[in-house]
């Protein structure tokens, strides 16, 4: 036993001055950690950016490139939040879970009227901030020339909160003196403009109404899909689906984001991304662009 106790005593006496040093080191570390913690608290939370089927929102590769681009420009973490239905995105904005969102025109009108969001920028498509609704039928249908000929047929809508994918054809029918609720034999929602094209191409629906921007983009990236459909008619023009900022987002953050978006046309990466997104750039939003949508909304009320 004595053989063991002797060296133990030796160690304790020998480490006396060493333990003082160790204590000092620990204290230094503690101070260091707390200062880091303060820094972490001060680090800004990521910007949450909502994308909807108003654009071809399942081009995940492009969206990821865009996210990385924005992170570099804003010097902040950016998260893209993709939802299939407009209602989901509207709810996320209402609950302040999104800072910005690229929404369709009808959700924009609804959100700004309710004071949940404000207009940030409007994209330029083919040099202009406008788009329209296309009435499409299967390519095999060579007879149809007007929506009125699809009475008693199966019709595909994009979204309950869609302007071009729901409001526009219904408004057209009502204007023609038809009962838009009983005109078709059956209607269904696909919760995406792209899927309206698919439903019509597959023959599931005899016709569908779709965002012209989505159809045009698809005709470039998936021509085999759009070639199975035929555009029967194009509606009047509406303001292009804008990017909105949550009203809870600070003015400063809004401006930083607005500038980052509007400056995309000024560098090569931005130009390349705009090309992939199939738009030409962004301009400051102008509510006047969306006045005819407001009119439609007033006609039908909230869905």
């Amino acid at each position: 036993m004595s053989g063991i106790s002797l060296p133990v005593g030796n160690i304790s006496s020998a480490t006396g001055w060493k333990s003082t040093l160790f204590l000092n080191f620990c204290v230094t570390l503690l101070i260091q950690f707390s200062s880091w913690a303060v820094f972490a608290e001060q680090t800004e939370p990521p910007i949450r950016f909502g994308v909807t089927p108003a654009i071809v929102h399942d081009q995940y590769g492009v969206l990821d490139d865009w996210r990385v681009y924005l992170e570099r420009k804003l010097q902040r973490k950016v998260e893209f939040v993709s939802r299939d239905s407009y209602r989901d995105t509207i709810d996320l904005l209402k609950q302040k879970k999104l800072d910005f969102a690229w929404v369709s025109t009808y959700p924009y009108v609804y959100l700004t009227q309710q004071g949940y969001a404000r207009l940030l920028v409007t994209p330029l498509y083919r040099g202009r901030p406008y788009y329209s609704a296309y009435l499409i039928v299967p390519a095999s249908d060579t007879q149809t020339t007007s929506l009125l000929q699809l009475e008693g047929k199966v019709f595909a809508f994009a979204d309950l909160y869609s302007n071009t994918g729901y409001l526009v054809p219904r408004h057209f029918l009502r204007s023609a003196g038809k009962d838009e609720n009983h005109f078709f034999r059956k209607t269904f929602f696909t919760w995406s403009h792209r899927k309206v094209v698919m439903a019509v191409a597959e023959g599931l629906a005899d016709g569908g109404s779709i965002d012209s921007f989505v159809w045009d983009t698809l005709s470039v990236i998936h021509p085999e899909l759009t070639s199975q459909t035929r555009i029967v008619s194009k509606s009047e023009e509406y303001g292009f689906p804008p990017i909105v900022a949550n009203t809870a987002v600070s003015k400063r953050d809004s401006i930083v984001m607005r500038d980052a978006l509007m400056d995309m046309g000024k560098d090569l990466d931005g130009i390349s991304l705009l090309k992939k997104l199939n738009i030409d750039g962004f301009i400051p939003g102008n509510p006047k662009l969306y006045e005819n949508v407001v009119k439609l909304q007033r006609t039908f009320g909230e869905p």
Partner: protein
Amino acid sequence: MRLFDLSFRVKLPLLGAVLIIVSALGVSSTLMIAAYGALREDLRLNSKVLGQALAPSLLQDMLHDDTWHAFETVSASTRITPDASPLKAKTLLVVDRALNVFVSSHPKVAPVLVPLQSLGSEYAALADRIPAGNDTETRAIELPDSSHLYILTPIADDHVRFGTLIIVVDKNFFLPRFYTIAWYGLLAGLLVLTLLLPINWYWGRRMALPLTQLTERMGEISQRLPASLDPEIYNYGDELGRLFNVYNQMLVELKTKTELENQIIQSERLAALGQLAAGIAHEINNPLGGMLTAIDTLKCHTDIDPQTKKAIDLIERGLTQIKDTVGALLVEARLKSRNLAPQDIDDVMTLVMPQAHKKTLRITTRNELRAEVRLPATLVRQILINLLLNAVEASLAQGIITCTIEAREGFLYLLVTNNGRIPSSEQLSRLFDPFFSQKDNGHGLGLWVTYQIVNQLGGKITATKEGNQMHFSVEIPVEASQ
């Protein structure tokens, strides 16, 4: 020719080949039938599982009238590539309680809201098979004359049926997989056949070869004694190997028997000849003795004119020659004589040597006699002289004659060997006949006399030829000493 008349050389390999092919076909077809059944059962099971997996989701879609989601669900199942999945549904259809299409994977063929009955005769027949009540059991239906299998899965909740999911599968969907399995089976079978058939062919011929040889040899027996079989052809201890041995043994026995028969025939013939000769000799000797006595008496008379005396002398010489000849024929062995001594053999050699030297022959003698032998010396000497003179006569110039004399185990053995003129087999069998001679001079009684003496001494004499050598061997039993 009937199939079973074919030679074993063909029949055995053929039979083996047929058996191998039949077994290979039997095994592989059983496996293929089993594989076909298993694949078919898999198809039904997988279809049922697919139906049961899709039904809950489709129920929600029906309840919410979500045509698009239902379409995405059913169309996804038909887009699976066949390689990746054991099941590819051809078409999926969801019909509501009224049997109208709610959604289908191929809307162009089966558009929404269209009654099932209007989609063709098969669907019309199928519509009759869909139970109207709240039956919640998955059914597999095969319609007569249809290439499809229909799996009906109820879309139900809490025993309330909202509709039916119809999965249409190609009944023969698994055929490509089956063909792949069958192809591998065929390859394996062919491999086995290419391995087994040559082995079988070799083995069959190996078995048949000894049999055919045996058959050929046996066939020869009626004409002549066939050659023996080479035991190396089939050196195994099975029935065939034993048959080989038995056959060879039988040949040896046959040969011995034939030789024995020949010997018996020859000795019987010679015995008969001996009796005949002795009989004739006695018949001649009696009057001859009288005649000679009469001539003797006649010669004692002095008043015979020289002419008559000349005639009497002529008659006497003639009668004496007859007596000699008859005497030679009539071998009398019961002659009293002293026993044979080793010296007798040397005497015989001395007597024969001048004849041998005349033909420049060499006689090698091996005399193993060391003591007297209880046999009449005169007769043995005559036998040996006769045999040696016969050998000298048959030998060509500068030939070698060997002569062995030995007494052992109660027998005296004499062996004389020479080369030179060798008698034919026919001549060999008549060698001991009286007046049989191969030479121009001589009366041909030497070997006859020898034979008679040996015979009367109770011995045996044999003449055998071996290549260009002639062997005469004599075996005489020696009287046991008192």
